[in-house]
């Protein structure tokens, strides 16, 4: 097992390498650079641009810029500045004077740690996942236990809608219903301190996962219900409750639990459209903005974070399979 985990961790290196190289090449292929201003505004003059390019190392050859970002490079005084592998995601080109890690993980003065940008995104993701678990799993269990009743059909219809309708389209419907028509919440919340504001974004983000979880739980339950050991449990006179909880659920939830890890990563990563839709102050918002701003270090930083999140989530699934179901041997 240990060997397997190490091998999988090592395998993350080429994956992250490819992701960062591709991102790096694309962003440098894009016309324009971080010092360009919108047309019409006063442009940065060439001498200043050259100075800025030198200061940020943009005058160096491409491969060296890449190595400098990931591993590190010597600055003008000859001292070594460590790169992304030390957690240094570089200075932001647009928000001068701040580093990328400071923008993404930095906590505003006098506020709790969950008010960083990453904290906001993580809270939204966790909330959405919680919604998916709290509603999705019981819905799936009940639908399976009451198979072919109206409960089953209703939840199947809702789950079908949830799985197929993309979350941002769902977001549009909910915004129009709750913000425009019923005026229960503002279209663009001014403050995220009120819990009421979080409901719709979390619902929008979590709906697909909720539907998916419900469907997966239902089908997994239906499969388990037909197993011999369930019949045995009933035959030996166990209470129905005990049969359901101890014998069915334990086994039925294995596939469900394993998809929740990547679901969380998906919710964290997939949230940038939702973040943009609700002007949510998370990292997804920063990511989309940074690409149009050509804020090179921010693009690389956010991509790297997303890449690591997904890779770790995928690893977590494979490992959790081994722990939860001893029948599956990791080779």
């Amino acid at each position, binding site marked *: 097992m240990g060997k397997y985990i190490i091998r999988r961790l090592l395998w993350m290196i080429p*994956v992250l390498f490819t*992701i960062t190289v591709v991102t790096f090449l694309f*962003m440098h292929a894009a016309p324009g650079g971080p010092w360009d201003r919108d047309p019409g505004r006063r442009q940065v003059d060439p001498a200043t641009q050259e100075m800025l390019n030198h200061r940020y190392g943009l005058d160096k050859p491409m491969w060296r810029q890449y190595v400098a970002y990931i591993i590190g490079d010597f600055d003008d005084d000859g001292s070594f500045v460590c790169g992304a592998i030390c957690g240094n995601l570089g200075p932001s080109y647009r928000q001068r004077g701040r580093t990328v890690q400071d923008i993404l993980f930095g906590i505003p003065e006098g506020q709790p740690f969950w008010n960083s940008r990453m904290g906001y995104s993580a809270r939204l993701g966790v909330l959405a996942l919680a919604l998916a678990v709290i509603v999705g799993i019981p819905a799936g269990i009940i639908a399976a236990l009451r198979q072919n009743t109206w409960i089953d059909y209703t939840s199947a219809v809702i789950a079908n809608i949830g799985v197929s309708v*993309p979350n*941002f389209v769902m977001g549009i419907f909910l915004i*129009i219903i709750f913000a425009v028509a019923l005026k229960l919440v503002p*279209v663009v919340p001014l403050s995220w301190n009120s819990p009421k504001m979080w409901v719709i974004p979390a619902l929008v983000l979590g709906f697909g996962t909720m539907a998916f979880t419900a469907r997966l739980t239902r089908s997994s339950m239906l499969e388990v219900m037909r197993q011999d050991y369930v019949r045995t449990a009933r035959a030996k006179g166990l209470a129905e409750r005990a049969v359901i909880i101890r014998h069915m659920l334990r086994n039925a939830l294995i596939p469900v639990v394993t998809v929740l890890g990547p679901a969380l990563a998906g919710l964290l990563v997939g949230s940038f459209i939702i973040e943009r839709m609700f002007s949510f102050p998370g990292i997804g918002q920063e990511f989309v903005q940074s690409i149009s701003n050509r804020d090179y270090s921010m693009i690389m930083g956010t991509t790297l974070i*997303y890449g690591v999140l997904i890779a770790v989530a995928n690893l977590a699934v494979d490992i959790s399979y081994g722990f939860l179901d001893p029948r599956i041997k990791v080779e």
Partner: protein
Amino acid sequence: MATVSESATRSAEIMVLSRPSRSLWGDAWSRLIRNKAAVVGMVVIAIFIVVALFAPLLAPHDPLQIYDGKATLPPVWVEKSVTGKAGDSEFLLGTDSIGRDLLSRIIYGARVSMIVGLTPVLIILVIGVVIGLMSGYSGPRVDNLLMRLTDVIYAFPDLLFYIIMMISLRDTVLGKLMNGLFLLFIALAVVSWVGVARLVRGQVLSLKNKEFVEAARCIGSSDTRIMSRHILPNCLSPLVVWMAFAIPRMIIVEAVLGYLGIGLRPATDSAAIFVTSWGVLLSEGNTTINSQPWILLAPAICVALVVMAFTFVGDGLRDALDPRMRGTM
């Protein structure tokens, strides 16, 4: 003494089927059309395809024509909108903030969604099938190399990739071809073939040692013939199901990118075939959400309808082609 061939003929006569034989596809089709949701889905898709093809005939107005004094009209059934205007029977779904007919724009938008759904999927099929066949059929070295490549691409966060690629290459020559549609096709195809490649490879690996392939090899069939005549047809049904689920994904990505303002470039030239898309309409509607929510609502409903229709057909196809899968996910 009865020869072997004689007894074979006799037993074949005995075993003549009492019913006319049905092909796999005929059988699947009859199962598919018994599935109500799938039939509804097929009808919806057919309607949208017709709308997309005959957009110029069906659209009541030129989607780019600006009607002075007719801006921000609500749909026809609204008697008084937030802006105080009443619906106009000439503009069924109302007009946008500069006075263009929304219904006509939606109709033209269907074109982009349909073409975006189909084209990348076809490109992906070609790339994926070729790589999958190569990987499964050639030796372990090629297989290993190709599978490592697909692993890396599989781990790639695809929506991030689309966004980076679209924003980066938007202002290049490539990004301007066909109002940006060309770039969209490429972006969608480049990372999505891995699913197909894995699927085909899996099929090849499980089939290539089967007796019928061995038999084909015995009578001297070439590798190309075995692959195209014996192995590929057996991959078709999972591929058809895959397609039914891939097409709506492409449509969604177009809508997302359009919504973010980095998809299709809205045309100003009325000679353009692809004038606007649902994604573009979504981003336009988003700016006027309070005063004219219908501009946002109409394309959102279209996207939801088409995507659901494809999902229903996909579910139906999966059940029809592989009845063992029925009732599971």
